[in-house]
C-alpha cells in the first residue's frame, strides 16, 4: 500500500496514458466496423466471408502484430499510433460480428415501412436502422471496450507507456504491490469506460430508457442483458 501511495502520480500517469490508447482504438474500431458490417450483411456470401476474415484476424497473436504492423504502416515500433492501430485492428475484428448481428436484428417490417415512407437508402440506414440497432451495438461496444482496455498492457512489452508498464516493471524488480496496482488499475479503467458507455447509451437511446423503465416497473427482476 505504501508503494501505491508513494507512486500515485506514476500510476495515475500510466492510467491516463492507458485510457488514451484504449479510447481512440475503441472509437476507430466502432467507426470502421459498422460500415463493414452493413456492407457484409448485403449478401449471404459477403457476410460469411467478412465474419470469417474477422475471426481469423482476431486469432493473430498480439505481440507479433505489434511488431509487424510498424513495418506495414511505416511508424516507429514504440509509437502510440502503432499501438492504437493494432488495438483498432483487433477491435474491428471483434466489433464486426456484433455490428453485423445488431444491424441484422432490426425488424424488417420497420425497415420496409421506412422505405415505403420515402426514406432513401443512406438516410434509412443513419436515422432508422442504426438507432434501432443501438442497444445491440452498445452491448457490442461494451465488450469491445473491456477487450481493448485489457489488451493495452501487451504494448508495455514494446515499452509504450500504459498500466502495463507497472506489470513489466513490477515483475522485473519483484515489486508485488506494483504488479497488483497495475492489475487493479486496469480493471478500474475498464469499469470507468464501461460506465461512460452506459451513460452515453442512456443519452443517445432515449426511447430505450423509457422501455427499461417500464419493464422494471412491471417485472421486479428484469433480466436486461446488455452485454
Amino acid at each position, binding site marked *: 500500500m505504501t508503494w501505491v501511495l508513494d507512486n500515485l502520480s506514476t500510476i495515475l500517469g500510466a492510467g491516463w496514458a492507458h485510457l488514451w490508447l484504449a479510447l481512440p482504438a475503441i472509437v476507430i474500431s466502432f467507426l470502421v466496423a459498422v460500415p463493414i458490417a452493413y456492407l457484409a450483411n448485403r449478401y449471404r456470401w459477403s457476410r460469411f466471408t467478412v465474419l470469417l476474415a474477422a475471426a481469423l484476424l482476431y486469432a493473430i497473436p498480439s505481440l507479433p502484430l505489434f511488431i509487424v504492423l510498424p513495418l506495414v504502416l511505416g511508424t516507429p515500433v514504440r509509437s502510440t499510433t502503432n499501438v492504437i492501430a493494432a488495438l483498432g485492428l483487433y477491435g474491428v475484428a471483434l466489433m464486426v460480428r456484433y455490428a453485423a448481428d445488431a444491424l441484422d436484428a432490426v425488424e424488417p417490417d420497420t425497415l*420496409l*415501412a421506412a*422505405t415505403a415512407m420515402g426514406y432513401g437508402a443512406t438516410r434509412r440506414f443513419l436515422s432508422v436502422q442504426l*438507432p*434501432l440497432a443501438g442497444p445491440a451495438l452498445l452491448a457490442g461496444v461494451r465488450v469491445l471496450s473491456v477487450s481493448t482496455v485489457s489488451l493495452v498492457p501487451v504494448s508495455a512489452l514494446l515499452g509504450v507507456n500504459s498500466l502495463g508498464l507497472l506489470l513489466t516493471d513490477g515483475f522485473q524488480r519483484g515489486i508485488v504491490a506494483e504488479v497488483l496496482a497495475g492489475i487493479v488499475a486496469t480493471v478500474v479503467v475498464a469499469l470507468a469506460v464501461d460506465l461512460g458507455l452506459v451513460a452515453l447509451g442512456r443519452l443517445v*437511446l432515449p426511447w430505450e430508457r423509457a*422501455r427499461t423503465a*417500464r419493464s422494471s416497473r412491471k417485472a421486479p427482476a428484469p433480466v436486461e442483458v446488455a452485454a
Partner: protein
Amino acid sequence: MIEFRHVAKTYEDGTVAVGDLSLVAPSGEITVLVGSSGCGKTTLLRMVNRLVSPTSGQVLIDDTDVADRNAVELRRSIGYVMQNSGLLPHRTVVDNIATVPVLRGTPVAEARERALELMTTVGLDPAQARRYPWQLSGGQQQRVGVARGLASDPNILLMDEPFGAVDPIVRADLQRELVRLQAELHKTILFVTHDIAEAIALGDRIVILATGGRIAQQGTPTEIMTEPADDFVAQFLGLDSGRALRVDGQLVVDQTGRPVGRLT
C-alpha cells in the same frame, strides 16, 4: 386514378404472384383487393409505390408510369398504412406522424403542429403525442399509422391489411372511422384485406382475387353479393353456407335454422 396494365410478377424463386392483371382503381374511391393468402394482393399494392417492381406490364398513376418517377419521391407522395402499423419504435407518436412531411422538407415544428391536428382527426388524444408507439394499444397504433399515411395530404392511400391485427370490436371502430374520414377527404384508396366482411363494409368497389393474381370478379358490393360470377366467388363470400339465409316468420335464419337476425 391507379391503373394496372397487364402487370405480372414472378419472384426469383419462381413463385408467380401475379399472372397477367389489368385493373383500374378510380379516383376518390375505395377499391378493395380481397383474397386469401397467395393471391398477390400485397404484391399488387406494393407495385404502386415501387416497393415491388412488376416483371412485366405497367402501373400508372393518372396516366404516368410509376417506373418513370423517382422511387423515393413517388413514395413520399403516396400514403402507406401497413399491418402492425410499421411505426418507427424510436420515434414518438407525433414524430412518427410527421415523418413524411419532414422528409419532404417541412420544418419540424410546422410538421409537428400539423401532426397534432391529425391526431384529433383520426380520433387520438393529442396528450399522447410524446409517447412511444409501444405505449399505445394496437388500435391506437393503427390510428397513428393512418395519421402518418395522411400527413403529407397525399392523393393516394395504400392500405395493406391495416386493421388485420386488432380485435373485432376495435376493427369495426376503425372501419367506421375510415368511412367517416373518406367522406371528408375523398382519397383514392387501394385497400388490401383477406376479410370479405371488411371488403363489403369499406369498398366502393371490390376486386376478388384468386390464386396467382387472377381477378375472379370485380364490382360494387351489391353487384358481387347479388350476382357472384362463379362458385369460387360464392364460396369466398360464404354464400354457399353461412350467408344463405331464409325468412322464417319474423326471423331470418341460416341454413341450419339458427337465427341470425330479425326483419323490421
